[in-house]
């Protein structure tokens, strides 16, 4: 590889034009000379090519492309814009075999290709319990009442018109399914970060603090201990929310997501936003809030979303998403193109507040370096980190380890399993490891 040109701005065709299938196999087999061979092939092609000689420079510069020499598309050709045709690979996807009914299933966000901290609304992960619905907002109602008379002075019904008249707040928060990384509790099971961590998204949500609505109904804060949130879909999913979170003003009745209304798959027209808490509590298509004094032990807090411990007991009402992080580039299923400089990039988040620090290891956790924080640091929000890495072509194991403002440090698999075993399904926040081979191939491994 020493004879390869390595200066910046070197003239080299884009790899997809010269990596043959044989080269890709070479990459898979870990042959380190694959790039040199590929480059020779590319040079040969160029020498015989119609476009330009390699010696003269890049044909993409020397021959003006169609987009530079023609008239482009008109405005509003696509009244609701779409990503480039070249970005089609980044879609939310199901994990084959995970579920047997697509209405009772999950699709994962393509974290391997996202930048910054905001998840485009069309790529937000999905979890539906009984299919998604697209509700006519003029027929949607939000009801607030108490388990007993007197828990709220006046039970009320709000239309969507009503909710949109109230003073809102806009806040950025992550939402993570409690079962994110659940397939990996026992062993490595999935190839890419989309499937291992993709039940994670982050949006700017706009909505009305639930506290405000409950006060409009005359809530008795002394009697109220919990609220029940219920959806309007077929599942009418219900979850118990602690009143203290409502009082903190963090819980929102949201209608906005990244500047527009919520997507139907994300609960249009109203959903609960419960920052720091697992996604199942962010009840979509929200139709009812009941103020009560005891938890409800609903199906999703008594049969599912309970964490099996090694002693055979299930932990119930586990809700907080503890501090966690993952490297998204490079990550499983990817191939590094060359030796040299890389920017390792990833996401960190905590259900207990702000991210304080993220450390990155390239040697499987023996030594660590503090990463740069790339963008804003918000409470209970994704935080993007990155760090320089010069890959020397040798095997490496990449890891990230986040710390939140409470001082909690994301644990390793060994530490997590020592306490919680390997059958929990839920709340796996272990340090993720990506192994890099000499061929540049990145794959999912677990390091104790």
């Amino acid at each position: 590889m020493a004879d390869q040109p390595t200066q910046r701005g070197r003239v080299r065709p884009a790899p997809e034009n010269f990596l043959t299938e044989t080269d890709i196999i070479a990459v898979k087999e870990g042959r380190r000379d694959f790039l040199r061979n590929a480059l020779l092939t590319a040079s040969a092609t160029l020498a015989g090519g119609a476009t330009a000689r390699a010696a003269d420079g890049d044909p993409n510069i020397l021959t003006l492309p169609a987009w530079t020499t023609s008239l482009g598309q008109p405005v509003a050709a696509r009244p609701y814009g779409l990503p480039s045709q070249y970005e089609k690979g980044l879609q939310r996807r199901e994990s084959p075999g995970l579920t047997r009914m697509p209405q009772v299933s999950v699709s994962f966000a393509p974290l391997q290709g996202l930048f910054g901290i905001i998840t485009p609304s069309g790529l937000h992960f999905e979890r539906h319990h009984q299919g998604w619905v697209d509700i006519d907002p003029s027929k949607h109602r939000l009801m607030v009442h108490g388990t007993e008379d007197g828990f709220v002075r006046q039970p009320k019904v709000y239309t969507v018109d009503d909710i949109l008249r109230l003073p809102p707040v806009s806040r950025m928060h992550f939402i993570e399914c409690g079962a994110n990384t659940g397939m990996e509790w026992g062993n490595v099971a999935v190839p890419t970060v989309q499937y291992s961590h993709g039940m994670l998204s982050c949006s700017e949500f706009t909505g009305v603090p639930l506290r405000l609505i409950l006060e409009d109904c005359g809530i008795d804060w002394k009697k109220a201990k919990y609220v029940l949130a219920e959806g309007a879909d077929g599942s009418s999913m219900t979850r118990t929310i602690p009143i203290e979170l409502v009082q903190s003003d963090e819980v929102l009745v949201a209608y906005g997501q990244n500047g527009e209304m919520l997507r139907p798959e994300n609960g249009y027209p109203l959903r609960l936003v419960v920052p720091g808490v697992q996604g199942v509590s962010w009840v979509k298509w929200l139709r009812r809030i009941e103020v009560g004094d005891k938890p409800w032990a609903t199906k999703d807090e008594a049969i599912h979303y309970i964490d099996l411990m090694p002693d055979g007991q299930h932990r119930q009402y586990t809700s907080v998403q503890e501090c966690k992080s993952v490297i998204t580039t490079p990550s499983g299923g990817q191939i590094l193109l060359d030796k040299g400089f890389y920017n390792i990039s990833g996401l960190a988040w905590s259900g207990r507040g702000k991210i304080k620090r993220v450390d990155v290891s390239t040697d499987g956790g023996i030594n660590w370096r503090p990463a740069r924080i790339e963008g804003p640091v918000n409470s209970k929000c994704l935080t993007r980190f990155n760090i320089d890495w010069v890959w020397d072509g040798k095997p490496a194991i990449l890891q990230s380890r986040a710390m939140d403002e409470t001082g909690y440090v994301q644990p390793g698999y060994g530490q997590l399993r020592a306490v919680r075993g390997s059958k929990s399904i839920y709340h796996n926040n272990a340090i993720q490891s990506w192994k890099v081979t000499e061929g540049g191939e990145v794959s999912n491994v677990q390091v104790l």
Partner: protein
Amino acid sequence: MSRFFKASLSGALVLAFATLAGGTAWADGKYSGVGRPATRAEIHAWDIDVRPDFKGLRPGSGSVDQGQEVWEAKCASCHGSFGESNEVHTPLIGGTTKDDIKTGHVLSLVKGDAPQRSAIMKVATVSTLFDYINRAMPLTSPKSLSNDEVYGLVAYLLNLAEIVPADFVLTDKNIAEAQARMPNRNGMSTDHGMWPGAPASKGGIGNGGKPDVKNTACMSNCKTEVKVASLLPVYAETAHGNLAEQNRAVGPVRGKDTSGKAAAVAAAPAPLSENAAAAKLANDNGCMACHGVANKIVGPGYNEVVAKYKGQADAEAKLVAKVKAGGQGVWGAVPMPPQGHLKDGDIRSLVKWILSGAKAQ
């Protein structure tokens, strides 16, 4: 007073009268005009939840037999006749014993020997079964069951798990007796730090947020060896589609090709025939943009070239020269640009291929 102002004032009066006509008796708070009182009937229609202490449970009854009838008609296709099916959903029934009913702990969870967890092995509260069936089942027509049908279905499930006898009639009066026999009724723990509200010591749940797992932010020489406990199984890599197509085509990395096609090519690399190689050359170098094999596009079709030079001994040399230097006039006014960047050998191959009929293979 402007016309606009008069119009909006009268509109406001109409609205005000409409509100009064609706009989709103509650004191309007800070957000005047937002929301309205819920009626008793509305609350009754939506407030269907049932708590573990049976708050919210509406009176009714259903026998095991009645439940079985509804079960066979509406539930068995997905869950199996005995709630045992693993076809569509994980089993509802199975894995509990008479001893578990006595202790309230499902022993196979403690021993860790159950191949999978059925719903009845997990659920501690019978109210959960009632509430969920009532609100969400059957999957395709939720909320279509009558109150008594739900009682019957719960009775049937409890009988399958040997919690109640075959002649049992479940009612709102005796459901607490069934609760006292739930096999995993003592199987839940709330002693953890993952409840975001008040702790148990203050009437809430859990320990107030104290984490159970600890790590430290060691920075150097944190361990002496790296123990890789688990690698991605081969089947898992290829079970998620072609990863090359799930990654961006620009940037520092590419997705790995897991389509299996790359391997097939390596196993049997089929060398291109002379014709196929020449056709590829023509395609790659833009020849086919102007020339068709059997038709004129901008320049002549290759069939026309063959016809024109038929029988000429120096056809090949002439054409090689023309391709290299370009030309104009022989086939019309549109010039053929010089193709000097092509290698001589490639030009000869192309010309030979054209004269031999420009076959694809």
